[in-house]
């Protein structure tokens, strides 16, 4: 157990519908929608919120300091606040920050907002500037890579190919139950395997879309949580692990940041069997080949057991260990919001009011992850009961 000055609860969740096109609103208006939704969900009066933590990807919309601009419509007027931008993990890091701000006693209520309006910029603009200007920037590509797919194919052969495709089909099935998801498509394993190759064995249907969307979560002290109508979801723990910021191509295969995060989180929280003790897992899956590899890393499956489990349907909403009931990142990816959506979806499952994609059981513990940069991971653990209980 980590040391916590005081308990922190999620008492409100707001999301936009994540869409490929949102020409009908500007950036500020998109964020306003999520803020309006979280105020409605929590019944919190905006004037009682102490601090706003705001985040998205650097350079993606080409706007410098969007957090300042967004004061026009995110409710931050006259409040404390700052911006966090840690690449793909941004949404998860905002949550770490909001948790710290409330746990420390500095604020009683913090609103965390992650957003992205990807149609307004060009993903590669931001991402390529992460690489070393002399050694890498002119040579590298963007976020599309088949590396881990090749590794999985070399290790497990055709069953891995079938499982990656089947997991993508499961995400589509789940997304069709989630009104807020961007891609709510009807696909079969055959469709996935027939879609065009981006970087073998990664195919078009394995890859996430570019979405526009925002997500806001209200974090409050225990005292305040008791006054608010929603069932509180308690913050238990979070672990951030990263190895480097430049690409270490030599050791790419050994980058076990996910496994390291999981080992630390499980050890600190008495988790011996994650699939028994944790009820649902919202994993940041930018593509299905990564999902296939990372399920093994996060769940401590050393011999590719996840392949069999996927083909068995064990990760389905009504399966043994539900993963991404929301449809995951391959179904919606407004990047700055993506990792906070994982936390929001995990919290909704604990509350029990996720809607059509609610898992059919009581969820006591839920995990969510954020992913970005050169294998950064942020792993969150949430619970139905207070962590000190």
């Amino acid at each position, binding site marked *: 157990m980590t040391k916590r000055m005081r308990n922190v609860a999620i008492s409100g969740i707001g999301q936009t519908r994540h869409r490929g096109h949102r020409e*009908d*609103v*500007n950036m500020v208006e998109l964020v*306003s929608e999520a803020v309006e939704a979280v105020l409605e969900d929590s019944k919190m009066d905006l004037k009682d919120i102490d601090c706003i933590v705001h985040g998205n990807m650097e350079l993606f919309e080409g706007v410098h300091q969007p957090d300042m601009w967004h*004061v026009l*419509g995110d409710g931050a007027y006259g409040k404390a606040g700052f911006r966090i931008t840690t690449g793909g993990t941004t949404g998860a890091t905002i949550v770490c920050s909001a948790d710290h701000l409330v746990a420390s006693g500095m604020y009683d209520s913090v609103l965390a907002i992650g957003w992205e309006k990807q149609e*307004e*910029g*060009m993903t590669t603009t931001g991402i390529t500037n992460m690489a070393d200007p002399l050694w890498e920037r002119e040579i590298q590509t963007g976020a599309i890579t088949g590396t881990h797919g090749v590794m999985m194919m070399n290790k497990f052969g055709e069953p891995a190919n079938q499982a990656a495709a089947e997991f993508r089909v499961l995400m589509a099935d789940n997304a069709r139950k989630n009104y807020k998801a961007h891609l709510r498509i009807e696909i079969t394993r055959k469709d996935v395997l027939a879609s065009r190759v981006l970087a073998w064995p990664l195919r078009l249907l394995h890859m996430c879309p570019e979405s526009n969307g925002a997500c806001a979560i209200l974090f409050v002290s225990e005292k305040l949580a008791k006054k608010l109508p929603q069932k509180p979801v308690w913050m238990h723990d979070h672990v951030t692990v990263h190895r480097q910021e430049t690409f270490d191509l030599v050791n790419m295969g050994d980058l076990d940041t996910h496994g390291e995060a999981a080992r630390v989180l499980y050890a600190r929280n008495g988790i011996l069997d994650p699939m028994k003790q944790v009820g649902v897992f919202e994993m940041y899956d930018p593509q299905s080949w990564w999902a296939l590899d990372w399920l093994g890393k996060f769940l401590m499956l050393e011999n590719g057991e996840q392949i069999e489990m996927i083909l068995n349907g064990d990760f389905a909403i009504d399966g043994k260990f539900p993963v991404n009931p929301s449809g995951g990142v391959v179904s919606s990816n407004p990047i700055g919001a993506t990792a906070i959506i994982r936390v929001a979806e995990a919290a909704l499952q604990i509350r029990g009011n996720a809607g059509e994609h609610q898992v059919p059981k009581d969820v006591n513990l839920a995990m969510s992850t954020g992913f970005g940069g050169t294998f950064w991971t942020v792993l969150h653990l949430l619970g139905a009961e207070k962590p000190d209980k």
Partner: protein
Amino acid sequence: MYTTDKLPLDQKDCFGKFGLMSIPYRYFAGLFLSEAMIALRDDKKILGAKCEKCDKVYVPPRSRCEKDFSKITELVEVGPEGTVEEITVVNYEEEYFKKFCSMLDPPYTMALIKLDGASTKLLHRIPGDKIKRGDRVKPKWAADDKREAMITDIEYFEKV
């Protein structure tokens, strides 16, 4: 002797890369604010957004009141005349700006102008350096075929 005493170093021995970052973007005004931009282009009208709750009229318009978080749904015509409230004089041409933005020939005045009926001030420019606070000004519209639903549809403001 410290290395810092010899700066700058010869680029032959101490390599530096000089690049240009290009950031492509599209910006969507949204349905509500588009009406105001289109009014500039098609009708030479300046619209502000009026908050029903606090009566504030925002120019440039916006769809949320930053103070009370109300959704704003009403656009009202303001100006076209207004009063100069704050000024600064631009005396130099900036090469980079000149390349990417439209500029007037210096010296010219940058001004915050409170248009009649608005609660906030609009940033624009006025030719010359003889402008004073309190001066009354009106917009000089760009030609019909030059207006493209941007603030530059008003070329500049000039004394009434």
